[in-house]
């Protein structure tokens, strides 16, 4: 059962990721990316990372994607311009070479490492357990993130107001 769920979710994630980078209409890309993010949230759930599952759905598939789709609709690109910005042959070829190189490198590094320990289902990633770690060992990074978010909000407002 677990393994069937894993394969379904990973096929959906990879297929929608391919659609995200290959569609010429950015709105189609954004919707494919949303499907991919939901599938990754499901993969978090199969890892029993319940906190990450909820955060991924709320923050990524929810807030960030709404922002992206809002901006795409705000810009209202013309059909002709979208077509011109689609995938082009030579670029795809060169970047695929880079991709194959990275995959080969990592596969070689992985085969040399002698394998990993199996995924342990006992590790419970519930909100309570994660919060215990965040508010003890990682409390300073947590506060820094809040300052970062404040700085981002101020920066976005300034970028939105200013005439460059």
């Amino acid at each position, binding site marked *: 059962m677990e393994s069937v769920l894993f394969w379904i979710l990973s096929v959906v*994630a990879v297929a929608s990721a391919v659609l995200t980078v290959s569609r010429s209409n950015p709105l189609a890309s954004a919707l494919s990316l949303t499907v991919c993010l939901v599938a990754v949230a499901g993969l978090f759930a199969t890892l029993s990372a319940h906190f990450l599952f909820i955060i991924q759905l709320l923050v990524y598939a929810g807030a960030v994607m709404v922002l992206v789709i809002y901006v795409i609709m705000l810009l209202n690109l013309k059909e002709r311009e979208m077509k011109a910005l689609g995938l082009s042959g030579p670029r795809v070829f060169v970047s695929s070479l880079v991709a194959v190189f990275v995959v080969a490198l990592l596969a070689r590094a992985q085969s040399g490492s002698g394998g990993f320990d199996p995924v342990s289902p006992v590790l419970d990633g519930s909100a309570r357990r994660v919060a215990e770690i965040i508010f003890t060992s990682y409390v300073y990074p947590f506060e820094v993130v809040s300052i970062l978010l404040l700085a981002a909000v101020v920066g976005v407002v300034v970028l939105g107001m200013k005439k460059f």
Partner: protein
Amino acid sequence: MIIGTENYLAVSLLLFVIGAVGVLARRNLLVVLMSVELMLNGANLAFAAFARARGVLAGDVIVFFVIAVAAAEAAVGLAIVVALFRKRGTVNLDRFTSLHQ
């Protein structure tokens, strides 16, 4: 079949590489930003899988921080896209060459 860490790492590697191809091959600024999000997701999945492999929950905390920073990055990035579009009327990356001249 037992699903091991390797399977999760393979999916995360695929997501990362597909995102990298998107960043390198696409010229639409919006799609490049979305591809960066894909790469971040691949890295997040690897963090969560390694956390299970090693039995330490710190990986989950790091993913939480990555998601928070990615949200800030997406907001600022999209604001820059809007500002650039107002100024130039395009989202073609090849047209943004003013530092190059």
